[in-house]
C-alpha cells in the first residue's frame, strides 16, 4: 500500500504537470519543480511522513540509471557536428565545467557554507540525472542539488542574451556550447530558439559536461578538497 502511494502520487502529479507544461505558454514553467512543490504540500497538509512517501518515490528514482544510459542517444545523434570543431568544443566544456566547480567552491567558502551544502551545490550545472549521481558520489544532499540545478537552468536561459551581448559572443557554436555547459537541458531549450546549430551544440555539451564534471569531482576528492 505504502509503496503504491508514493509511486502513484509521483506519477499522477508528474503527468499532470507535464500536461500543464503543454498548455501554458510560459516557457520557464518547470514540471519537476511544480510537482515537487505540490507533493510537499500534499504531504504537509495531510500530515503524511516523508518516509511513507519515500518508499514509493525510491522506485521512481530507480529509473534514473536507465535514463542516464540513454543520454548517449542524443549525444550520438549530434556527434557529426562535433567533428569539425572538436577541440574548441571539448576544451570549452572541460574548462567551463571546471569553472563551475571552482567558483561554487570558492564562493561557498567565502560565505561560510558547510561542507555538506558546498558538495550539494557543486554539480549544479550538469543535467539532473547525472547531477543526482554526482551528488550521491560525493555525499551531497540530493534534494538541494536538484533545486540548484533547476535554478541554474532557468537563470541561464533568462540571462544568456545579456551575457552574450556584454561579452560580445556572436559565434553560434560558442552560444550553444555555453548554454549546454552552464544550463543543461533548460539552456538547450533556449539554445534551440537561437537556431538548430546552437541547439545541437548545446545538447551535445550536456552529456560531455556531465562526464567532465564527474572526472573533475574525482580529482577534487583525490586532492582532498571535498
Amino acid at each position, binding site marked *: 500500500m505504502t509503496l503504491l502511494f508514493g509511486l502513484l502520487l509521483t506519477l499522477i502529479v508528474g503527468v499532470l504537470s*507535464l500536461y500543464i507544461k503543454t498548455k501554458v505558454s510560459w516557457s520557464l514553467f518547470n*514540471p519537476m519543480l511544480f*510537482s*515537487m512543490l505540490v507533493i*510537499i504540500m500534499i*504531504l504537509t497538509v495531510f500530515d503524511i511522513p*516523508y518516509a511513507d512517501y519515500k518508499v514509493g*518515490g*525510491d522506485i*521512481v*528514482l530507480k529509473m*534514473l*540509471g536507465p535514463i*542516464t*544510459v*540513454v*543520454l*548517449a*542517444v542524443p549525444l*550520438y*545523434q549530434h*556527434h557529426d557536428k562535433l567533428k569539425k*570543431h572538436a*577541440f*574548441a568544443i571539448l576544451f570549452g566544456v572541460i*574548462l*567551463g565545467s571546471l*569553472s*563551475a566547480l571552482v*567558483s561554487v567552491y570558492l*564562493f*561557498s567558502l567565502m*560565505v561560510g*557554507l558547510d561542507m555538506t*551544502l558546498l558538495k550539494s551545490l557543486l554539480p549544479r*550545472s550538469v543535467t539532473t*540525472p*547525472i547531477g*543526482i549521481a554526482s551528488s*550521491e558520489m560525493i555525499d551531497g544532499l540530493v*534534494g*538541494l542539488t*536538484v533545486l540548484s540545478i533547476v*535554478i541554474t537552468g532557468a537563470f*541561464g536561459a533568462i*540571462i*544568456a542574451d545579456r*551575457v552574450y551581448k556584454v*561579452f560580445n*559572443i556572436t*559565434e553560434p*557554436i560558442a*552560444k550553444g*556550447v*555555453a*548554454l549546454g555547459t552552464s*544550463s543543461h537541458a533548460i539552456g538547450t531549450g533556449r539554445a534551440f530558439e537561437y537556431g538548430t546549430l546552437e541547439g545541437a551544440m548545446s545538447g551535445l555539451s550536456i552529456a560531455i559536461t556531465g*562526464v567532465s564534471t564527474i572526472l573533475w569531482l*574525482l580529482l577534487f*576528492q583525490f586532492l582532498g578538497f571535498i
Partner: protein
Amino acid sequence: MLIKEIAIILGIYFLGEALVYVLDTKFPGSVIGMLLLLAALHLKWIKINDIRLVSSFLLSYMPLFFIPAGVSVMVTYTLMEGFYLQIVLITLVSTILVMALTAFVVQYFVQREKS
C-alpha cells in the same frame, strides 16, 4: 520489440555497474553505461532503432523521474537554514561566470580554427 529494448538498455546499465564494481571506483555506473552505449552505437553493435521506443520514452518523461529527489528537500531544508540567500546568489553568479567563460573560450578557438 519492447522487451528486447528494455533488455538491451538494462544490460548496458548492468555492464556499467559491473565495471564500477570490478574497478572499485566511485564513478557512477549509469554514466559508464552511457559511455558504453555511445561506444556501442559508434561501433554499430547497437543501432538507434534497437532502442528507439524505450529511449524516447525515458527522455521525454525525464523530468518525472527527478520528482522524488526534489521532494527530499522537505527533510533536509533545515540544514540550509540561514543560507538560502547565499545559496541562490552563489548559483546565479557562478552560472553567469560559467556561461561567459565557456562561450569566450569556444568562440576564441572556433574563430582561430576558421581563419
